C-alpha cells in the first residue's frame, strides 16, 4: 500500500540558487507521478483512509489523517500538475531573478500546504494547513519586498485571510467542543444526529464559511486577490487557479455540516451571487491585465459557492476543474505578454497577436475553456449547471448565464486591446517569450483542449452529456452574446472616462472595485486604529496617572512623616506594633 505523502516538496534555503529550482521541479514531478500512481490504484480498488496519531490530551484527540478518495486525488493531481507547469514557467519568467531559491522554496511550501489541504480528512488538519497557506501567501506576495505596493499587498492578503481564518477557528473550536472528534466522517455523523440551537448553528455555519470565503476571494473579502497580483506572475497563476480551488474544496467538505444552518446557506448564496456578477462587472472596468483575470476568478468562485450552497457538489467540482486549468493558462499567457512588453496596462498595448503565437493561442484556448465554448470543459460544466439549476431555482440559472456572458465580454475586450489592433509604443517590439515559458503554455493548452476527455474518464460519458439541448443552447447563446458585445463595444486607448455623469459614476464604481478599499479604510481600519490609540492614551494618562498619583501621595506623606522621625528606636517599634495590631484587628473584624 502506498503510504508516503506526495508533499513536502522541498524547503531549501539559499544554499545555491538555481539548483534549488531544479530540485524543486524534480520533487514536484515526483509528486505528480506518485499521485497519479495512487490515483490509478484508488480508481480500481476504492478509497483509502490513513491516520496517524498526533496529540492526545485529556479529551482531545488530534490525528494526522488523510483520505485518499477519488475526488481528493484528482484535486491533488490538479495541484501538482499545475505547480509543475508553473515552476517550469517561472524558470523562464524569473530567469533574471537572483533570489530564485527563496522563490522556489516558497512555491514548494505553497504546493505542500495545498496538497495537504485537499488530502486531509480532519477539519483541524484542514484548518492547520489553510493557515500555513495564508502564511505562504504572505511570503510569496511579499517576495519583492522592496516594492512599496507589495508591502501593502502582502499585509492586506495576510490580514484578510487571517480574519477569515480566525472566524473559521472559532467554528473549528466550537465544533471540536460540541462534536468531540475532528475527522470529517465523525463530524458528518454528529451533524446528522445532534441538534444545536438555531443561533449556535447559524454562528457555527457562518464561522465555517468565513475561512473559505477569505481564501476564495469572495465579496467582501476579495480585495486581497486584486492586491496580490503585485506578486510574481507564476505565483499569481497558482493563486488564481489552485489556491481558490483549495478553499472551495474545504467548503465542500464542510457542506454536510452547513446543511443544518439555513441562514449560512442563504448567506453563501447571496455572497456567491454578488461575487459572481459583481466580480465580472468590475473585471470589465479594469485596465491592468492581471486584475481583469483576478476579478473573474472571484466571479467564477462565486458560481462555485452557489453550487455548493445548492448542495450540488459534482457541479462545483466540474466548475473548479475546468476553471483551474483555463485560468492557469490565461494567467500564463498574460505573463508572457508582461514579460515581452514590460507593461500591464491594456490601454498601452496592442497588435501582439500576429507576433506571439504561443501566447495568443494560449489566451484563445484558455478563454474558450473558461466561457463554455463548445466543446471544451467549461462548456460541459456550464451546460450541466444550467440543467441542474433549472430544476432547483431559475434565478441562479440566470446568474450563471449572466456571469458567463460578462466573462466572455471581458475576455474579448482584453483580447482586442492586447492582441488585435495597431502596435503602440510599448508593444512595437515584442518577440515571443523564451522556451521555458512557451513550453508549459503549449502543454497546458493541450490539457485544456483535452479537458472533456479527462472529465469523461472520471465520469461516464452519459453522465456528462446528460443535459438537454436547450440548456446547451442557452449556454452557447450567453457566450455568443458576450462575444458579440465584446467585439462591438468601442475601445478607447486613452484613460478617458465618459462625459455622461451617470455612466462615469458607474465606471468609477467598477474601476475602483465598488470602493471596497476605501470602505475598509474608513470602517475597520479606522475603528481598530481609533481603539488602539484610545488604549494607548488610556494607558499613558489614566492607568499610569493613577500609579503616579499614588506615588506622589506616598512621597508627600513620606515627606510629612519625615518630620516625625524622632531617631528613637522605641517610637519605631511602637509604630510598627500599633500598625500590626490594627491590621490584624481589621482582618478578624472583617471575617467574623
Amino acid at each position, binding site marked *: 500500500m502506498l503510504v508516503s505523502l506526495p508533499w513536502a516538496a522541498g524547503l531549501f534555503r539559499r544554499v545555491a540558487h538555481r539548483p534549488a529550482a531544479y530540485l524543486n521541479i524534480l520533487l514536484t514531478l515526483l509528486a505528480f507521478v506518485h499521485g497519479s500512481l495512487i490515483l490509478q490504484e484508488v480508481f480500481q480498488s476504492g478509497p483509502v483512509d490513513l491516520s496517524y496519531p*498526533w*496529540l*492526545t*490530551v*485529556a*479529551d*482531545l484527540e488530534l490525528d494526522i489523517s488523510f483520505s485518499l478518495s477519488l475526488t481528493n486525488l484528482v484535486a491533488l493531481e490538479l495541484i501538482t500538475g499545475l505547480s509543475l507547469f508553473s515552476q517550469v514557467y517561472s524558470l523562464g519568467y524569473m530567469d533574471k531573478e537572483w*533570489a530564485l531559491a527563496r522563490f522556489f522554496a516558497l512555491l514548494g511550501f505553497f504546493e505542500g500546504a495545498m496538497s495537504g489541504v485537499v488530502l486531509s480528512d480532519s477539519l483541524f488538519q484542514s*484548518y*492547520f*494547513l489553510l*493557515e*500555513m497557506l*495564508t*502564511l505562504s501567501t504572505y*511570503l510569496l506576495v*511579499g517576495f519583492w*519586498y*522592496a516594492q*512599496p505596493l*507589495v*508591502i*501593502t499587498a*502582502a*499585509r492586506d492578503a*495576510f*490580514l484578510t485571510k*487571517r*480574519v477569515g481564518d*480566525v472566524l473559521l*477557528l*472559532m467554528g473549528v*473550536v*466550537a465544533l*471540536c*467542543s460540541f462534536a468531540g472528534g475532528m475527522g470529517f466522517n465523525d463530524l458528518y455523523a454528529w451533524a446528522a444526529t445532534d441538534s444545536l440551537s438555531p443561533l449556535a448553528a447559524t454562528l457555527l455555519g457562518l464561522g465555517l464559511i468565513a475561512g473559505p470565503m477569505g481564501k476564495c476571494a469572495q465579496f467582501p473579502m476579495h480585495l486581497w486577490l486584486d492586491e496580490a497580483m503585485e506578486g510574481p506572475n507564476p505565483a499569481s497563476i497558482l493563486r488564481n487557479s489552485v489556491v481558490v480551488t483549495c478553499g472551495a474544496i474545504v467548503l465542500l467538505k464542510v457542506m454536510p455540516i452547513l446543511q443544518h444552518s439555513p441562514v449560512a446557506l442563504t448567506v453563501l448564496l447571496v455572497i456567491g451571487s454578488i461575487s459572481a456578477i459583481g466580480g465580472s462587472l468590475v473585471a470589465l472596468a479594469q485596465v491592468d491585465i492581471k486584475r481583469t483575470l483576478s476579478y473573474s476568478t472571484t466571479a467564477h468562485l462565486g458560481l462555485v459557492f452557489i453550487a455548493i450552497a445548492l448542495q450540488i457538489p459534482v457541479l462545483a467540482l466540474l466548475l473548479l476543474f475546468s476553471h483551474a486549468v483555463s485560468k492557469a493558462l490565461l494567467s500564463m499567457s498574460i505573463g508572457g505578454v508582461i514579460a515581452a512588453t514590460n507593461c500591464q496596462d491594456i490601454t498601452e498595448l496592442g497588435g501582439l497577436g500576429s507576433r506571439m503565437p504561443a501566447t495568443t493561442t494560449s489566451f484563445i484556448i484558455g478563454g474558450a475553456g473558461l466561457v463554455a465554448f463548445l466543446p471544451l470543459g467549461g462548456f460541459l460544466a456550464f451546460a450541466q449547471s444550467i440543467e441542474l439549476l433549472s430544476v432547483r431555482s431559475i434565478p441562479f440559472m440566470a446568474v450563471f448565464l449572466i456571469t458567463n456572458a460578462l466573462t466572455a465580454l471581458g475576455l474579448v475586450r482584453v483580447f482586442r486591446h492586447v492582441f488585435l489592433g495597431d502596435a503602440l509604443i510599448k508593444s512595437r517590439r515584442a518577440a515571443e517569450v523564451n522556451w521555458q515559458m512557451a513550453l508549459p503554455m503549449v502543454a497546458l493548452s493541450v490539457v485544456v483542449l483535452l479537458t472533456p476527455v479527462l472529465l469523461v474518464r472520471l465520469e461516464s460519458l452519459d453522465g456528462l452529456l446528460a443535459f438537454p439541448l436547450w440548456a446547451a443552447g442557452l449556454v452557447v447563446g450567453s457566450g455568443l452574446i458576450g462575444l458579440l458585445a465584446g467585439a462591438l463595444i468601442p475601445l478607447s486607448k486613452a484613460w478617458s472616462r465618459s462625459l455622461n455623469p451617470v455612466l462615469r459614476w458607474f465606471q468609477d464604481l467598477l474601476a475602483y472595485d465598488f470602493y471596497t478599499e476605501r470602505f475598509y479604510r474608513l470602517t475597520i481600519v479606522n475603528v*481598530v*486604529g481609533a*481603539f*488602539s*490609540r*484610545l*488604549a*494607548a492614551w488610556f*494607558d499613558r494618562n489614566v*492607568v*499610569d496617572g*493613577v*500609579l503616579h498619583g499614588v*506615588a506622589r501621595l506616598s512621597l508627600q506623606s513620606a515627606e510629612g512623616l519625615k518630620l516625625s522621625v524622632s531617631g528613637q528606636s522605641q517610637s519605631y517599634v511602637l509604630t510598627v506594633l500599633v500598625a500590626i495590631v490594627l491590621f*490584624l484587628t481589621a*482582618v*478578624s473584624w*472583617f*471575617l467574623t
Partner: protein
Amino acid sequence: MVPHLVDLMLLSLLLLIPFSGALGLLLWPTTQSSERIRIGAIVILAVQCVASFALLLPFDPTDAALQLVEQARWVHSIGLDYALAVDGLSLPLVLMNAVLCLVAAVASRSIDNRPRIYFALLLVISGAVNGAFLSQNLLLFFLFYELELIPLWLLIAVWGGANRSYAATKFLIVTAVSGMLILGAFLGLAFVTGTMDFSLRPILSGELGLKAQFLLMGALLIGFGIKIPLFPFHTWLPDAHTEASTPVSVLLAGVLLKLGTYGLLRFCLGLFPEAWQLAAPWLAAWAAISVLYGSLAAIAQTDMKRMVAYSSVGHMGYVLLAAAAATPLGLMGALFQMISHGLISGVLFLLVGVVYARTGTRDLNVLRGLLNPERGLPLTGSLMIIGVMASAGIPGMAGFISEFLIFRGSLQPFPVATLLSMVGSGLTAVYFLLLVNRAFFGRLAIAPGEVANPRILDPVALREQVPAIALSLGVLALGLAPELLSNLSEAATTGLSQLSGGLS
C-alpha cells in the same frame, strides 16, 4: 533505577548550583576579563541546564502527585520549612527557566560595567526562580519570590537604557506591593485557619468561610495579577522592557512573568478551588478585557520593544482565561501558553535587541528595509518573521497549539470571553505585521536624512544569532510535536482541574 541518594538531592542541586555559582563569581579576582566571567556564568548555567533536564529521568509523567520530595525543618517556629517537590506543572517551567537563563547569559556580550555583579545577579535570579517553582511551603515560595526582586531591580537600574531609574523604581515598587499582598494573603490564611503550618495543602481553604476565601484569594489575585501582568496592573511592564537590556528583557518576559501565572494556578486555583469556581465568570471577563486591551494598545506603539511588551500583556491574558475555565484541556493549554510565550518572546526580544544594537534605534517610524541581503539584517529579519508568525498563532509553531488548547478548553464554559480572546489573537497579526512591514520591508533606511546612502551597519556574526536560532527551533519543535510537553504534564493538569470540581 536512579540511586536513592541522588534522587534526594536533585532538586536542592538546582538551587545549589546557581547560588554557589553566584557566590563563586563574586569571589573571582577583578583582573578577569568580562569575557572570562561570561564564560564562567555560561558554564554554570549549562550545568544547571543539564541538571534540570536530568530531572526528566526519575520523573514519572503518569503520577499526578508531587515527586522528588525533599523536606527539612528550617525555621519551624514561624512555619518556614524547607520543602521542595516537582510535578507536571512545575517541571516544564523549571526546564524553561534553565534554558532561558542560559540564553540570557549567552546573549550578554560586552558587559563592560561590573561584569561579576551582573552575572552573579543573573545566577541569583535563576536560582530564586527555581526555588519559587519548586517550593512546597508558602513562606518559602514568598522568600524566593521576593529574592528575585532586588537583583532584577539592580539589573534594570544599572545596565539599562536612558530612562532606567524611572522604570526600575516603578518595577521595584509595584512588584514589592505585589509581594506584600501575597504575604498578607498567606499570613491571613495562617491566621484565620489558626494553624501555623505553611505546607502547601490544597484542602486548606475548605475549612474557611466564603468571605474569608474571597478576601484572601482577592489579595493573591491582585498580587499575582501585577506580576502576570493583567490590566490594569500592567503599566510597569512596557517601561521595564523598554529600559532593560536585551538579556534582562528575555529573562523578564520569559521567566519572571511565569512566576505570576504559576502562582495563579498553584495558589489561587490550587488553594481556593471553591472561591475560584464562583469567581470564574468574572475572571474570564477580566481575561478577555486584558487580552483585547493589550493587543489594541500594541497597535499604536512605535517602539518595537514596547510593542512586544504589550503583546506579552495580551498573551498572558489567555492563561487567565484557561485558568478560569479550569478544564483539563484548558489548564494544559495554559501551561503550553506559558512555555510557548517564554520561548517566543525570548526570540522576539533577542532579535529586537540585535536591531537596536546595530542601528541604534527601535523607532518604527524611522527604520525601513532591514531585510536587505547585503546592507541590512537578513537573518534577523527572517527569524523575526518566524517569531512574529509564531506569536500570531500560525500552525506549525508553539503559539498555535497553546491557543487552540486554551480556546477549546474555555469555549463551553465561557463562550463570549473565548470568542473575544480569539479576536485578540487576530489582532496580534495586525500589530506584528505592522512591525515587520515597516522595519523589514521596503528600501533600507536607518536614520532620517540619510535616504540616499544609509549608514553602514556592522555585520551580524552567525554566532550572535545562535540563541535566537535555538529558541526558534524550539518553537517549531513544540509546534510540530506537542506531545513532548503534553505527555509530561497531563497528569498534573488533570489533577489540578479536578480539584476545582472540573468545570468541563
